[in-house]
């Protein structure tokens, strides 16, 4: 797995698995970005905008903080 360049971690890979092995392309189509952008978000190479983050959490029907976590957050 590629080393993360952002402080935002995510559970997208796991959530895709639990949603019938949803592909990156299927998720990308639902949130209106390219598959490469979904791949970059999953790999920690890109922090999505708040709007795209909300769209992703809406697709998985999860609160935002269950999809994304701020790695730099303390206590």
């Amino acid at each position, binding site marked *: 797995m590629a080393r993360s360049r952002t402080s935002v971690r995510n559970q997208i890979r796991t959530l895709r698995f639990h949603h019938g092995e949803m592909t990156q392309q299927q998720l990308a189509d639902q949130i209106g970005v390219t598959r490469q952008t979904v791949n970059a978000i999953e790999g*920690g190479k890109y922090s999505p905008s708040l709007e795209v983050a909300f769209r992703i959490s809406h697709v998985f029907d999860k609160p935002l903080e269950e999809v994304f976590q701020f790695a730099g957050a303390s206590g």
Partner: protein
Amino acid sequence: MDTSFEEKSVWVQLVGLVVGLGSYLVVAGLMVSNGVSALPAFVPVFAVAIALVVAINIAGHVVAAVASQSVEADERDRLIACRAESQSSWILGVGVIGAIMALILSVSGVWVAHLLLISLFGSEVAKGALQIVHYRRGI
């Protein structure tokens, strides 16, 4: 290599610029070193270079579009383009200031024109290269 249409487009533009304008600058450099100092003499060479850039861009973008599922840019593409532009635009700025200084110092028009062209070329090549870096390394 797993690339979006926008990233392929950046590669095409970069190759077009380097091949087209790079060739022009090599030929123009040889002309200047041989004593050519009239700007109109450079116009046909420049026209051929621009035609080469356009041809490479058309052919490259057709191939990129065929090889891509979507040709629409998303927020990541726009952010990368914006950041690369802001990181490379200083090169053109330096060239413009240099050209103004050259005009004040009454430097030949051939040198002023080519200073502007080189700074534009450098700025665009740097922008493309930075976009590739941001696509590959993350942003």
